C-alpha cells in the first residue's frame, strides 16, 4: 500500500486536530464563565499555578505557541480544582482502567456481533436469522444507561451472580463490559449479516466452490474478507461510541476509570481536566480512525489507489 495513501490520510487528519486544539485554546482563554473570567473565584494557589503555567502576561500568539508546545510534549497543564496536581497525573490514574474496559467491550461487541451476524447470513430467513436480528433492534434502540442498570438488576441483584460495582476481580468486569459491548454488537451483527449475504451472492463464491474448495475455506478465506469490510468501516464510529458510552457505564457501575472522572470534573467545572481529557479522547479517536482506514485499505485492494 502506497506511502501516498497514508500521507493523504494524515494530511486530512492533522489540520482537523489542529483546528480542534486551537478551538480548545481559545475556549479556555476567552469563554465567558471560563477559567480566566475575572468573575471567577479561584483559590490563589491555583491562580498562581495557572499564571505561571500559561504566562498570561505574554502576547497571545506566544501563549498559543507555548500551548502547542506543551501539547506536543503531552503536557496538559495543572488541574483547576486540585492544587498541586497536574492533569496528566489525574488522568494517568484512571486511564488504564478505561482502556481495559474499552478493550473488553470491543471484544464482546466483535465476538457476539460477528458470530450472530455470520450465523444469520448463513441461514437467512430462518430462526437463526430472525432471533438474533430482533435482539439486535434492542441493542440499537436501548441506550447504555438502560441496558446497564437492566443487566445489573437482573444478574446482580435479582440473581446475585455478578457484582455491580467496582473493578477488582474479573467478575466485576463482566457486566460493565457486556453492557457497553452489547449496543455495538447489535450494529456489528447487522453489518456482518448484510455484508456476508451480499458477498455470498457474488459470482466469485461460485467460482471458489467450482474449484472444489471446502465450504469452510470458501467462507473463511473468500467470503469473510469482503463480508467483514462494513464492520471494519464501523470500527471508527464504534470506538468513538465506546469512549462516550464508557462515561455512562463507569458511572453506573462505579468504576474508577477516566470516564467517571471526566464527568465528575465536568460537574465540578475543573476546566483544565475537562479540556485535557477531551483532547486525549479526540486524539485517540483520530488515531484510531486513521488506523481503521489503513486496515480497510489493506483488506480491500481496490481502495488503495484512491
Amino acid at each position: 500500500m502506497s506511502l501516498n495513501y497514508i500521507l493523504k490520510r494524515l494530511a486530512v487528519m492533522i489540520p482537523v486536530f489542529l483546528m480542534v486544539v486551537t478551538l480548545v485554546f481559545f475556549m479556555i482563554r476567552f469563554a465567558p464563565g471560563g477559567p480566566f473570567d475575572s468573575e471567577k473565584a479561584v483559590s490563589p494557589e491555583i491562580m498562581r499555578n495557572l499564571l505561571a503555567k500559561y504566562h498570561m502576561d505574554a502576547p497571545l500568539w506566544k501563549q498559543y505557541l507555548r500551548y502547542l508546545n506543551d501539547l506536543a510534549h503531552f503536557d496538559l497543564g495543572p488541574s483547576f480544582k486540585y492544587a498541586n496536581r497536574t492533569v496528566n497525573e489525574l488522568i494517568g490514574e484512571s486511564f488504564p482502567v478505561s482502556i481495559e474496559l474499552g478493550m473488553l467491550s470491543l471484544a464482546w461487541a466483535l465476538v457476539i456481533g460477528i458470530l450472530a451476524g455470520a450465523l444469520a447470513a448463513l441461514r437467512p430467513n430462518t430462526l437463526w436469522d430472525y432471533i438474533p436480528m430482533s435482539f439486535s433492534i434492542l441493542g440499537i434502540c436501548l441506550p447504555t444507561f438502560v441496558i446497564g442498570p437492566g443487566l445489573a438488576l437482573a444478574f446482580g441483584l435479582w440473581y446475585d451472580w455478578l457484582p455491580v460495582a467496582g473493578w477488582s476481580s474479573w467478575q466485576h468486569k463482566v457486566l460493565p463490559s457486556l453492557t457497553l459491548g452489547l449496543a455495538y454488537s447489535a450494529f456489528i451483527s447487522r453489518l456482518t449479516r448484510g455484508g456476508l449475504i451480499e458477498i455470498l451472492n457474488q459470482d466469485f463464491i461460485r467460482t471458489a466452490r467450482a474449484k472444489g474448495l471446502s465450504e469452510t475455506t470458501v467462507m473463511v478465506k473468500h467470503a469473510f474478507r469482503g463480508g467483514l469490510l462494513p464492520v471494519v468501516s464501523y470500527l471508527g464510529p464504534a470506538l468513538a461510541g465506546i469512549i462516550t458510552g464508557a462515561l455512562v457505564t463507569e458511572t453506573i457501575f462505579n468504576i474508577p476509570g477516566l470516564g467517571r472522572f471526566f464527568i465528575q470534573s465536568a460537574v465540578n467545572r475543573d476546566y483544565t481536566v475537562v479540556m485535557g481529557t477531551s483532547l486525549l479522547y479526540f486524539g485517540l479517536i483520530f488515531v484510531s480512525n486513521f488506523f481503521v482506514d489503513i486496515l480497510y485499505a489493506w483488506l480491500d485492494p481496490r481502495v488503495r489507489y484512491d
Partner: protein
Amino acid sequence: MAPLLKIIDYRAYFRTRRGVVRAVDHLSYEIHAGETLGIVGESGSGKSVSQLSYLGLLPKPPLEIVGGEVFFQGQDILKFNQNQLRQIRGSEIAMIFQDPMSSLNPYLKIGTQLIEPIQVHLGKTKKQAWSQGIGALERVGISDAEEAMNSYPHEFSGGMRQRVMIAMALTTKPKLLIADEPTTALDVTVQAQILDLLKDIQKETNMAIILITHDLGVVANISDRIVVMYAGKIFEQGTAESIFYQPAHPYTKALLKSTPRIDQAESRLSVIQGNPPDLSRLGSGCPFYDRCDYRISDCEIAFPNARKPEPNHQSFCHVEVK
C-alpha cells in the same frame, strides 16, 4: 471409445412458490475426450443450469434432481455426496464463467486464488504451487507472469482476467472444461483470442470442452458437436456441420435465420415472434408451439420423439422440415 461424460434422460426442476420450474427436462447427450460440445440456447433455456446442477453448485432446495443419470468416466455422479463432488470439481471437471471481473475474488491476489486448486487437489506446497501458477499464466499468454501473480483482479482488463480464469481452471489438468458463456462479456477481438487459446490447449491436453453460449458465431468457431436447447429441452443435436448446414428443427432454422450476416444485405432482421415460455407453466407438448412456423396440432399435445435425419443428428420435432 467410451464417452467421457454421458448424460441420460437428465431432469432437474426448481420447486418455487410459483410452481415447479422444469429447468432441465429429459436431457441426453455425450461427449468424448478431445471433443468440443457447444450448447446453444436463449437465456432461460436451461443451458447453464444443466451443468451447474449436476456438479452440486446450485442450492438443493429449490433445486431438485428428479431423475436421470450423469456418467462421468463411468460413474454416475448424481449419486455422489457433497464430498465426492467437491473432489472432482476443480480437478477432473473445471469450470469457467461469464464475467471474469465478478468471478474472481477482488480481495485476494491473483496468485492466491490461482494456486488454490493446485494446493487442494494436488497437495502441493504454496511455493511449489506458486511456481506452477506462474507457468500456467505464461501458458495462457500472460507475459510478466510473476508480477501478475502478485496483482489484483481489478488491475487487469477483461480479456486478461478471462485468461487468468482459464489458467486457474487448467492447473489440475482437468479432463473436462465447462465454459459458461466465456466470451460474452468480452470484446469481439478478445473473444477470438480466447477461443483460439481454448482450442490450442485442447489440442495439447486432449481435454473435452463443453461450451455454453447463446452466440452462434462462437459455437461455429470452436464446436465439433452442437446441442440446441429451448425451455429446458433438447431440440436438436448433431455435428456442427449438420446443424449449420442442414438444420432439421424449426427453432434451429429460425435461430440461424435471425443471425445478422455481414455478407448479405438485408433491410430487416428476421426475428422469432413471441416470447420464451414461462417455465413454470409448461404443458406436455412442445414449448415452442406458440412461436413455431411449422406447428401442427400434435405439437401442442405431446413432445416429439427424436427424428434422425442423419446418423449422429437428432431433431425433436413432429414435422419433417426441409
